[in-house]
């Protein structure tokens, strides 16, 4: 263990192994049987529960030289695995994430922050999770996929393509089920905004083809003057112009 890298107020449980290059900031609590290795940096007031492994080498990077940056106020529950990155940026966890029992975060994944990931959520390598995302049990997020902000994934869903923000997605492969009203309400969105988003979702995802037409998107943008709608449409345009738009075809 490297005591130089640990702030004074860090508490470390028994049988925990902390590698030489690890740096841990104030008030972080690390329980027993935790392994933290590699070039891992951990912020303030994080909590690590027994059995989690952070900064372990990945299949792409067996030497384990990559970085792993964990910001403040993250709770990492039992048996979570977070791999070290292989790229320059490394694996990044933003602030206020809760990773429940048995979650897996692959190398170079980016969790922007404020997410709650239920048990056994697998976030594969290079995936990007935007803010305030909630996942249910056994969700699998494929490599290089972006999950939109305020999104919700139901149990056993497989996220094989980018998802738009504010959406509830379900199934394997997933379909878009509607607006994540409950989460938006909890995050302090006004009723009016939620209703607007709901109308837009109806317009876009309720027709028979389920494929957003770029003309249709432009029309919607003119009708609804709302920053959240604009954000949704920007994301949808990106998905629609991507080479593989299977996601929005499925009905």
């Amino acid at each position: 263990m490297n005591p130089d890298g640990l702030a004074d107020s860090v508490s470390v449980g028994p049988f925990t192994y902390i590698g030489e290059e690890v740096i841990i900031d104030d008030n972080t609590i690390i329980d027993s049987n935790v392994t933290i290795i590699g070039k891992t940096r951990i912020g303030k007031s994080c909590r690590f529960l027994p059995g989690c492994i952070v900064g372990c080498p990945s299949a792409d990077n067996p030497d384990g030289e990559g970085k792993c940056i964990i910001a403040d106020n993250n709770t990492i529950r039992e048996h979570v695995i977070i791999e070290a990155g292989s790229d320059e940026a490394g694996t990044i966890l933003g602030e206020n994430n809760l990773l429940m029992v048995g979650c897996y975060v692959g190398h170079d994944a980016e969790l922007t922050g404020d997410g709650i990931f239920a048990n056994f959520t697998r976030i594969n390598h290079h995936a990007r999770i935007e803010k305030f995302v909630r996942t249910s049990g056994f969700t699998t997020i494929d490599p290089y996929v972006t999950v939109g902000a305020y999104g919700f994934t139901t149990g056993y869903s497989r996220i094989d393509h980018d998802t738009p923000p504010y959406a509830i997605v379900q199934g394997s492969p997933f379909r878009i089920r509607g607006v994540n009203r409950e989460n938006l309400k909890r995050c302090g969105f006004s009723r009016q905004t939620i209703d607007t988003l709901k109308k837009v979702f109806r317009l876009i995802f309720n027709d028979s083809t389920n494929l957003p037409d770029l003309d249709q998107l432009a029309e919607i943008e003119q009708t609804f003057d709302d920053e959240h709608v604009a954000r949704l449409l920007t994301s949808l345009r990106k998905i629609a112009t991507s080479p593989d738009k299977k996601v929005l075809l499925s009905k």
Partner: protein
Amino acid sequence: MEISVIREIDPRVHISDKARIGPYCTIGPDVSIDAGTIVKDRVTIVGRTIIGKNNVIEHGSVLGAFPQDLKYQGKPTYLIIGDGNYIGPNVTAHVGTELGGYITRIGNNNFIDAAAHVAHDCYIDNNTYLAPAVLLAGHIRIETGAVLEEMVGVHHFTTIGRFSKVSARTAVTRDVPPFTIFGTGKENPTLPAVILGAHHEGIEKANLQKQDRDALYKAVEEIFSDGSPIRIKIDRILNQRGVSEVVKTLCEFCLKSLSGKYGRQREAFRGKIPPEAREYLHLIEKEPHEQ
């Protein structure tokens, strides 16, 4: 012969002389472990956890950690494990929450396999089988003899009935009636799970008399074989003369679930102390309450 003595046990822990604790175990201050229990290596037992006799707790399990419920305020809550349970490797079980009744309970002679998760305020009765990676959300009741196969995920406030079976990789979002198999059928693999029929092994295991057994098979067949309204069929069964006790419990379970929100009878206990917790109220009352 004890070889390894590398373990961290708080002096306040109450461990019976006849219990065996393996190496690299961390056992917190408010834990009590009764005679005959074997705790293998790298096990962490924290929180207010009471473990009965003759349990086996396998490698890497974490029992009694604080719940994953964000509404939990940090008050003393309990995890109570009965006798003769097998708790597999990397199993996690959490203590209860204040709003859910302070108690998580695992009964007697349960088999909880590897990496299963028992969340806050769950009540597991006796003789159940939880396969590897079974995921129980909070406030769930699993009744005696139920079988949950691999990777079953159960929604909050669900009840899994007596001697029922949930097939592998099923998302359970409503109550599973006793003596039935619940799962996704061959014709509809992606749709929400349905009741597939009677659980023969469960009914055999339940030690029923032959006439009860036959009545039960008939009732399950009648209630769940077609899509017509269940309430009418149950009324018809209950109005017959000489309905056996076990069929009556099945019908009552179904009626309760039907009247519950989203088909879950325990939704009524949201934010309330459930009846199962009353048995343990003396533990909660003993705690020094903050003024």
